[in-house]
């Protein structure tokens, strides 16, 4: 609260004064999107988001009445840039909307960062953090301050097919200082639902990692809205002390309504809305129409939660009793290694068969477990088998293998957010290799239209993983699945490159302090370019992977970056050209002719000075010149060989050997004799005739 108050005081400060202070502070203002100025010297901690830091900002057009602030995004994540356009037009709605975004140099970090400009709320945050308590809202306040003001925003978002995925009490703001109405906080600074505590997620989402909750749907937003209402009514999160697993377990056992409201008595009308919004069955959950009708005073019959089928006797695991398959699946997923040991033998199959009474599920388990053990009793099932067992136990649950747990539409996001974790990368590879995604689709009761698209995309990932060479592999999966994810190349760590247009300028900037030792194309850069540009020729990607042929590999580097320059510019890249040019030594040396090498060196110099990568690539890979060089070299080699042999023959006395000399002497003697004889006959003839 105090931070917020300080922010407001800062806002009151005059613009020139702020500029002065900013100039004396951590640096001058940063211009974003040509329209806004951000002041790195003025943080706004009250507006910070879990993965973004807030700073004071203002529109450059001083006539603009709109107050704005800036969020500097986490460099290891990607904001939801796909929503920037659609949300900009919703500025009239009670929600913080993004007005601009740009990747700019951020002086405090001495690196480039993605900076969002958003409309600034004039009121404060309702809940300062996810665990904070506050004065509970009564029925009237809930309706007047929260539901009615936010309903148009929810309806508009739903109509446009946008899921907010950041509706929670600590992301709600009072619209103004009078605290009469609320507004939704921003939802673009981090991947969808990443910042949501698990209590705000439906069971399936809460079972997944925060990164694996996916974009979801309006239904997920309405669920989060229901949870928010419950928390506002109770003046804080009633399950703040519970672990994520315990929260999900409670939701599975008692339902979300029971978990959040418990035995607290609520007004009937609110009970009705909360039961509808907090329904754990997506099909039964209230939609926007239901909410609108309720807000307009039409009362609907409260939804009664459907209790899970209870087994006749419990399954004991980790010294706890489990009475249904879904909770047991949750426990298995949370204690992977222990679950593998528990599944040795047929105890689980017997329990499902006899106690749960689900023949079909028991058969599915038998298929997995007996198949896994290959007929040998006593072996623990592998990760793949356990993952499949979990799907049999709870088909709605996220795709899980060890700590990797994700909704089916967020597999790529989990990889991206946890890319720095080697074990998560390995699990991702195993999941694709074990075809668990396909199995998950098969385990669903019905095929939904969106599954076909997802399935096709994941098959593509399998193709990328099969090819482990540069330009493919895990890196390609990462960038192919996450459109706005920054390039994670260590070289570009400070550049925050998210678009193809930013790659070459970032590499060019690296040459400002001298040419780096390493090559400009590593696995991340190659995969990023391949994923962000359609139609990088396969021959270029193949060339990049030719570790056995240094010349082709280096030419591949040049061609790849030349292709990017052709597609996205800029036209002059002298630093990068010099960087690539330095690595062209082996290429030039691969020509045999000294004359050609000298010509190429001149061409290289000209290309470097022009900063033209395409010209550089063509100059270094001149097929006609290569052909001339090859044929010339073949001729020269043959000639050298002939010369060498003749030299050896001459040095070994080929011309002075007695036999050779004698033979030549005989010939010469005969010729000389012939000449003398002819001369003599001629003289005698002249004498006698004369």
């Amino acid at each position: 609260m105090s931070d917020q108050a300080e922010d407001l005081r800062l806002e009151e400060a005059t613009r020139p004064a702020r500029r002065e202070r900013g100039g004396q502070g951590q640096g001058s203002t940063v211009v974003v999107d040509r329209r806004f100025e951000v002041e790195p010297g003025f943080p706004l901690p009250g507006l910070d988001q879990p993965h973004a830091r807030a700073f004071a900002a203002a529109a450059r057009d001083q006539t603009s009445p709109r107050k704005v602030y800036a969020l500097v995004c986490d460099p290891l994540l990607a904001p939801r840039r796909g929503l920037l356009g659609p949300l900009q037009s919703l500025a009239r709605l009670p929600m913080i909307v993004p007005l601009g975004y740009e990747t700019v140099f951020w002086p405090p970090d001495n690196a480039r960062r993605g900076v969002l400009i958003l409309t600034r709320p004039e009121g404060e945050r309702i809940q300062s953090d996810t665990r904070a308590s506050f004065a509970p809202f009564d029925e009237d306040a809930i309706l007047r301050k929260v539901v009615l003001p936010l309903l148009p925003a929810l309806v508009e978002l739903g109509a446009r097919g946008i899921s907010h995925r950041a509706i929670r009490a600590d992301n709600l703001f009072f619209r103004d200082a009078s605290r009469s109405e609320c507004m939704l906080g921003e939802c673009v600074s981090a991947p969808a639902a990443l910042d949501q505590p698990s209590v705000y997620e439906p069971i399936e989402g809460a079972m997944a990692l925060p990164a694996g909750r996916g974009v979801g749907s309006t239904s997920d937003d309405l669920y989060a809205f229901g949870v928010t209402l419950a928390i506002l009514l109770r003046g804080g999160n009633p399950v703040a002390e519970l672990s994520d697993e315990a929260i999900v377990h409670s939701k599975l056992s008692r339902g979300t309504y029971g978990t959040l409201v418990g035995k607290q008595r609520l007004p009937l009308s609110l009970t009705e809305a909360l039961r509808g919004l907090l329904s754990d069955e997506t099909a039964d959950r209230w939609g926007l129409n239901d909410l609108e009708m309720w807000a307009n005073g039409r009362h609907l019959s409260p939804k009664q939660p459907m209790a899970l089928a209870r087994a006749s006797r419990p399954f004991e695991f980790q010294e706890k009793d489990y009475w249904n398959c879904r909770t047991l699946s949750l426990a298995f997923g949370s204690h992977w290694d222990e679950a593998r040991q528990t599944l040795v033998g047929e105890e689980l199959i017997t329990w499902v068969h006899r106690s749960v009474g689900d023949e079909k599920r028991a058969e599915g388990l038998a298929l997995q477990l007996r198949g896994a053990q290959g007929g040998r009793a006593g072996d623990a099932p592998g990760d793949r088998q356990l993952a499949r067992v979990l799907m049999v136990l709870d088909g709605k649950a996220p795709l899980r293998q060890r700590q990797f747990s994700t909704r089916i539409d967020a597999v790529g996001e989990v990889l991206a957010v946890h890319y720095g974790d080697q074990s998560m990368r390995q699990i991702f590879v195993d999941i694709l290799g074990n075809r668990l995604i396909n199995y998950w689709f098969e385990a669903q009761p019905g095929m939904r239209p969106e599954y076909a698209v997802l399935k096709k995309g994941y098959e593509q990932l399998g193709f990328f993983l099969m090819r482990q060479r540069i330009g493919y592999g895990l890196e390609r999966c990462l960038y192919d699945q996450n459109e706005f994810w920054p390039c994670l190349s260590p070289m570009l760590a400070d550049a925050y490159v998210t678009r193809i247009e930013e790659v070459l300028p970032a590499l060019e900037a690296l040459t400002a302090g001298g040419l780096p030792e390493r090559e400009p194309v590593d696995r991340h850069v190659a995969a990023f370019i391949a994923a962000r540009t359609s139609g990088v020729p396969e021959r270029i990607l193949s060339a990049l992977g030719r570790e056995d042929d240094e010349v082709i590999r280096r030419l591949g580097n040049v061609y790849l970056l030349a292709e990017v320059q052709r597609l996205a510019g800029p036209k002059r890249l002298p630093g990068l050209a010099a960087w690539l040019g330095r690595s062209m030594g082996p290429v030039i040396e691969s020509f045999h002719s000294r004359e050609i090498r000298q010509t190429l060196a001149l061409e290289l110099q000209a290309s470097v000075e022009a900063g033209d990568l395409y010209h550089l690539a063509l100059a270094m890979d001149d097929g006609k010149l290569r052909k001339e060089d090859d044929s010339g070299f073949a001729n020269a080699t043959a000639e050298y060989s002939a010369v060498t042999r003749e030299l050896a023959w001459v040095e070994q006395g080929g011309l002075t050997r007695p036999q050779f000399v004698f033979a030549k002497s005989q010939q010469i003697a005969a010729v000389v004799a012939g000449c003398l004889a002819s001369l003599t006959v001629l003289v005698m003839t002249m004498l006698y005739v004369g």
Partner: protein
Amino acid sequence: MAARKAKDIPTGGGAGGGIRWGRISLGLLVALPVMVVLLPTTIVTLVLSLPTLVAVLVDRTRERYLVATVGLLNLCGLLPALIALWERGQSVDAAMRLLTEMLYWLSALGAAGVGWAIFISLPPLVGSYYGLISQRRVHQLRKRQKQLIEAWGEDVTGHGDLEEDEEEEEPEPGDLEPAAG
């Protein structure tokens, strides 16, 4: 080379021998009447051509360069004697008398001797000449090798392959052709 060697292999008797004897027979058939008619000339020629006959016996090479060398000059030395015989009239008596004159012997045998001298004295001279040629050729070839290395790099020498080639077959003069110039 191979063709030349094949050609050198003696064919022995058979058809080739028959043809040779046939030619000799034909030659004798034509020559004998001439020799009978010109008997004095034949006598003088045969007697004064003794050095050539010796050369024919000594030179067993195919090319018969010694026969050509001695024979051509011997024939030149014989001509004065034949001219004198024809001036004195074609008779055996004149031929006998002529063979007793030292001048004609000196002329025929001297000329043949010159031929023998040329044949014997040339090899040392030719050897010296080829010695000089060899030095010059070595210099030219080394220069060319250097030029090729400068223009195409050390790879042009193809070390490994060349050594193998050299081991496999010994170069022979007939197989070698000058690389350049």
